[in-house]
């Protein structure tokens, strides 16, 4: 069950391994590392938000500084309402699985997501179901991305942790899975564990 309010945007670019979505609201970005889905209940593609940008709608035009005479940042947007139209927020999600109400597979779907597919931020229940398995971690740590993969994995696990009542146990289990996956690369493991360890 996905509530309409969880809809965050629409696919504007898609490939086998990732999709890019534009947000309906400027700055209405899902957090880094959050689990999003696209497609209908019969065939959902799951992605993890790994990158986001907010920039001018027209690629060649850069925004200019406008706040010299304003007292607050909010003031800028208030006095230039057209800004909301000139700027847009976009995010990229790495495909980590697909499935339907019956089963979720943590491997790549046969086809990429469709353009204009609605993108939803997965609710807690779904995050919990999805993160019962840690197979997606393998997809995450083996990709090369513009952001640090360790950073992304840590962010993902922190996000997912929120959905679990026993966050500690979840993080510990994930940590152990990572320790196995990164068995021959302790420095990467350490970078991730350092970012998910409870304070």
């Amino acid at each position, binding site marked *: 069950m996905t509530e309409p309010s969880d809809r965050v945007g629409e696919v504007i670019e898609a490939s086998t391994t990732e999709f890019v979505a534009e947000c309906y609201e400027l700055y209405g970005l899902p957090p880094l590392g959050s689990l999003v889905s696209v497609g209908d209940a019969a065939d959902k593609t799951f992605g993890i938000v790994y990158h986001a940008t907010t920039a001018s709608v027209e690629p060649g035009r850069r925004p200019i500084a406008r706040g010299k005479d304003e007292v607050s940042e909010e003031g800028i947007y208030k006095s230039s309402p057209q800004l909301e139209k000139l700027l847009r927020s976009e995010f990229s999600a790495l495909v980590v699985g697909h499935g339907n109400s019956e089963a979720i597979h943590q491997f790549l779907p046969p086809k990429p997501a469709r353009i204009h597919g609605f993108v939803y931020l997965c609710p807690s229940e779904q995050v919990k179901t999805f993160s019962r398995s840690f197979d997606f971690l393998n997809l995450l740590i083996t990709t090369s991305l513009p952001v640090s993969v360790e950073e992304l994995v840590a962010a993902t696990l922190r996000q997912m942790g929120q959905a679990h009542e026993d966050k500690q146990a979840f*993080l*510990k289990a994930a940590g152990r899975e*990572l320790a196995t996956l990164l*068995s021959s*690369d*302790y420095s990467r493991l350490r970078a991730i564990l350092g970012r998910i360890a*409870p304070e």
Partner: protein
Amino acid sequence: MSEEKGQTLGIVVSGSVDKGVEVRLDSSASVEDMVVGRYVTIEGRQRRFFGMITDISLGVTDPQLTINPPDVTDPFLSEVLNGTATYGTIHVLPMLTIGGDVASLIEGPQPVKTVPSHFSGVSLASDADMSLVFGEEDENRFFIGNPLDMETKLCLDLPEFVKRSNGIFGKSGTGKTFLTRILLIGMLQKSQAVNLIFDMHNEYGWEGSSEEGRRKVKALKQLFPEKVAVFTLDPENSKRRGVSTDFVVRIGYDEIEPEDMVLLRQTLNITDLAVEAAYQLRRRFGRGWIQSTLDVGESEDTQELLKELNIHESTFQSLRRGLQTIGRLSFIEPHASVDAVNSLLGYLNKGMNVVLEFGRYRDITAYVLVANMLARRIYARYQEMMERSMSEDIAQPNPLVITIEEAHKFLNPEVASRAIFGTIAREMRKYNVSLLVIDQRPSGIDDEVMSQLGTKITCLLDNEKDIDSVLAGVSGKSELKSVLARLAPKQQALIFGHAVPMPVPIRTREYGSAESYKGFVGGADAGQQAKKDIEELWD
């Protein structure tokens, strides 16, 4: 620990028949709980394997971890890393297999000829597993101790045990004497063999002492008065110690043979030539050779005699000095009026066990001389009895087990081929006689004799040569070596060989408390009277 299945430890990750298998521990099994010498079972696909932990080690998946160790005080980190990036492994030496099919259940455990397949599960052996392999206490099996860290009773099949000569080893103070007492009690109850014990330190017959606080411990005759006779070489000493003895042994010169001198060469510090001279003099003078040799003195005739026999004067003097040393032992007489051997055989034939106490003659000369001489003559009589029983179809003499201490004095390479104990050890009970040898320096014993010993029970040894000689020819030697080296300094022993299906380190059964005596006597077919006597002993 009496559940059907022991605690799960981990999985097999590599290995070979020869070297044993590596087992990676689950994170739930702590390395610190693992103990070298413990038994594990491995569930292979077709059969179960039975093996022993012989080494325990720590592993890391990435050497970075050892260069840049994580902060283990952080509980999160340590819990995540434990069993994943950092893990424990145990090395297991599989020793037996138990097949899944009916046939192999009947045949019982078999020696291993293969290894369990990859990732077979490994768990600690349960008590049920142990009794499956070692058997339970019954009319043949005698409880001698517990496998390390287990409650299971380890029971030795004693009729099987006494079929061969056996050895008990261990450095001083490790529990050889205590263990021997336990075995002797077992043998006199369950082996159908009789024992003759050459008791150098007077600790098997009546009572011995224990190191802590010099507490007295009961010995065979106190516990089994009906089955044990105590012979003594030193009646005054025995009396002073309150021992009720059955026979006083005297030895005549005419009972000593040149062969006995072979063994005594070193302790008497006489030359090889002097020993040869003894043989010549024996031929010349017959049974009275010692008396004659001592009598000739320095007379003119001596020179002539020596010339005739081609014995050098200094050689002769060396021999004479040796014989004089023997003559000074007060149990030696020119001619003994009662023959100790006859009396001894009388007891043995009645099924009684005989302990010969040496009293104050605790030096090795007396011990070697008497033990060798008596054993030689008893063996000859056994030989006769066996031959007669075969030709005339009458009952064989009771199987006899002779216990000797300081065994290397009798069985070192120099004398083993010429002295009686070497013969007994090599003949594998051809004439119903076998040995129980006790020694703290097994490396001093002839290799061939060592290899003939059926079952070896060894307490802690720390000399490399001794360890090598005890473990020579055993499969999995290097692994057993580490088990042996890690035995506790007291009351633990490693048993391997003929009488056990696989090597097993044990904690020796408790001996010396009132409770323990009850256990020993209670399990016996001891007569009512004996039982009553025992009750009185600890009242």
